[in-house]
């Protein structure tokens, strides 16, 4: 996690990073213990043991060879249901800084092996009322505390974890699409047909990475828990050149966009943070800072593919711009 600025209460941030590291170690230990049973016949133990500290203060002893075997812990579907201990992940999106650079979208697509039109985070052009100027509105999954998608899922393929993340296990999903119809934020994508990338066997499937995707199942933004376990920011937050996306832990009251680290509560209180469509009662964990004192004129956002500009053709403001020949 790159950070240039520090804040006064730096102990808290150190804590955030430390816990992040430790939880990834737990995961490593957890997997290796499980796979020890499964892969016994081909595993030769060296006998060397390493002691590790778990987040809940216990010391565990694991095979040293196992740790080396899992540079990046593979989290099985069953393990992915638990969540990272003592975390309440939260995202804050500063609408004043967004200029539709689409780095978040592209970085996310690359990391999650998504096609051109498959976007876990979408950039919408939203206009609050007739008088106000539209603004760019990056929209990931809101990882609600009252997620309608989880309530309606008949098999538990989509689930809410203790660390606030809502994940999809595409090995459990039967593809009934009820979650899509119940999500008021259109956050979900269905795999309608077969694609070659589904046969990618470079890494075993984990709900935490969502790779490989599977035909006939759902996928969506996952807050990149694989990166969180390593103490890193999600791809979208890391990629944004404007520092629009802050990510952090509500328990520690800290969010960071990679450049500045701030208290979550102060950011929300001082800047008038809100949640989109609050009245629906879904209690999202993605907060927005209103598009006041914008850093970029709206038109800067139209400096992109013609095909993507076409998306916004129904917004009255865009029609007006087109009429005046500005885009």
């Amino acid at each position, binding site marked *: 996690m790159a950070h240039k600025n520090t804040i006064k209460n730096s102990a808290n941030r150190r804590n955030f990073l430390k816990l992040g590291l430790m939880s990834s170690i737990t995961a490593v230990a957890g997997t290796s213990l499980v796979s020890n049973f499964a892969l016994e016949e081909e595993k030769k133990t060296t006998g060397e043991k390493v002691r590790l500290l778990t987040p809940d203060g216990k010391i565990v002893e694991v095979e040293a060879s196992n740790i080396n075997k899992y540079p990046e812990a593979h989290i099985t579907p069953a393990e992915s249901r638990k969540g990272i201990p003592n975390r309440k992940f939260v995202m804050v999106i500063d609408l004043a800084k967004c200029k539709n650079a689409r780095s978040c979208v592209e970085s996310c697509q690359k990391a999650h092996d998504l096609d051109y039109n498959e976007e876990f985070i979408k950039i919408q052009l939203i206009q609050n009322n007739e008088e106000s100027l539209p603004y760019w509105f990056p929209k990931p999954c809101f990882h609600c505390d009252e997620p309608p998608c989880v309530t309606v899922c008949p098999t538990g393929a989509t689930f809410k974890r203790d660390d606030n993340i809502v994940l999809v296990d595409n090995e459990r999903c039967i*593809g009934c699409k009820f979650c899509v*119809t119940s999500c008021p934020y259109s956050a979900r994508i269905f795999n*309608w*047909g*077969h694609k070659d990338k589904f046969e990618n066997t470079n890494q075993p499937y984990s709900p935490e990475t969502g790779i490989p995707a599977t035909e006939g199942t759902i996928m969506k933004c996952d807050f990149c828990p694989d990166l969180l376990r390593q103490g890193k920011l999600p791809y979208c937050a890391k990629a944004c050149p404007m520092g629009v996306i802050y990510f952090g832990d509500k328990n520690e009251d800290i969010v960071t966009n990679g450049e500045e680290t701030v208290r979550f509560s102060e950011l929300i209180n001082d800047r008038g943070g809100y949640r989109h*469509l609050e009245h629906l009662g879904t209690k999202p964990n993605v907060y927005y800072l209103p598009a006041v004192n914008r850093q970029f004129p709206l038109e800067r956002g139209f400096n992109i593919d013609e095909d993507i500009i076409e998306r916004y053709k129904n917004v009255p403001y865009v029609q007006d711009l087109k009429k005046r020949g500005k885009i």
Partner: protein
Amino acid sequence: MDIEQRKRELVKEFSPMLRKTTTISKIWIGFLIAVIAVGFYALILQFTKGHIVTGMRDNVVWGIYIINFIFFVCLSYSGAFIAGILHFFKTPWKNSVSRIVEITTVLSIIIGPIFILLCIGRLDRLHYLFLYPRIQSPITWDIIAILTDLIGCFLYLYLTFIPDFSILRDNSDDAPKWRKKLYSILSFGYQDTTSQRERLNKITRIMSTMIIAMAIVTYSVLAWIFSLTVQPGWNSTIFAPYFIIAGLYSGVSVIIVAMYLIRKYYHLNHYIRKVHFVGAGIILLVISLLFGYFTFTEYFSRWFSHKTHDIELLETLFNRYFWEFIFANYIGVLVPIGILFFKKFRTIKSITFAAVIAILGLWFNRYLIVVPTLETPYIPIQDTRPEFIHYSSTWIEWALSFTGIAAFILFFMLIMKLVPIIPISGIIDQERKSKKIKPKIIL
């Protein structure tokens, strides 16, 4: 004339219907099988290529499959409701229509759920519904409700078949061996003794009330699949009763159409008479008034309170779906009311015409509930792919929809080959009650 002789006579009367297949019905069966074959090909395409072959995409994830699903399940529900009521209140003229109603009920509860299976992306994982069930999901409720309803309706249908199976077993001396054997197995040792008859009557009566209750539960749960979400256009408190009325509306209409066709092609003018059409027509009139009232209330309150997202939905309905809206909610309600309201218009043909309009109108009404709502989500669709913005069904979806209808008609015809469409036992019962040996009018 004693009862045994009368039974023989009736079996003789109905046996051509059971055993002989006319050229017209052979052509019909061939045609239906052809439709089903095309549907089967479409099904294979959908299985091998995935749901990409349908018109459904990320915004409109449910298309005409789910509309057909609602349609058939509501047919079954209303069939059960009507069958239960007819039986429970011992309606005097029920005998001629009760079997049509019961067969409709069972067939549509078998065909309806097949459409929901077509919506499921991973049919190979269907057993996960039972391996990892989650009781708070309305889909789980739906599965429980439909399975219960299916078993209940099937039992009820079978109970009403038993006396006829026993009559056919005792009176088909010249029938082929397999038929005799089948009847003797299916009649379950029923000998039509007084105690057996009383017991069977009691069970049938209990079942008739149970299937009414089950039907209401099943259809309410189905409505909740929509109304328990937060989507504008779905999140409505009146959806469960609205769906129940809508179900009755299409159910009574389908029964009227079935009565008309059966009467015409099997020459049963003597049994299915104008009084049945007028009776069913008046029921349809009452339900169409109720249905129109519910529809009006639903849209009127959305329009009057004009919340942003409701208005967006209504704008979609009145622009993109203008003619569908007019057809479903104006023509589909007002034309049947207009025909059925005036006594002089109540002829067999016009009542059947009103029923056909009601069926089509209701199907479009369901379409307008499902598709436009999904096309106007809370966060506006900003996409460049036309198929992701608007839903248009593909030939695969239509082929499978017509397969459902064809299968319904085909199975109906096959069941009519097994048991007489007018219950013989019912005729006997009535004659026994009225002490007539050979009545002239059989209602």
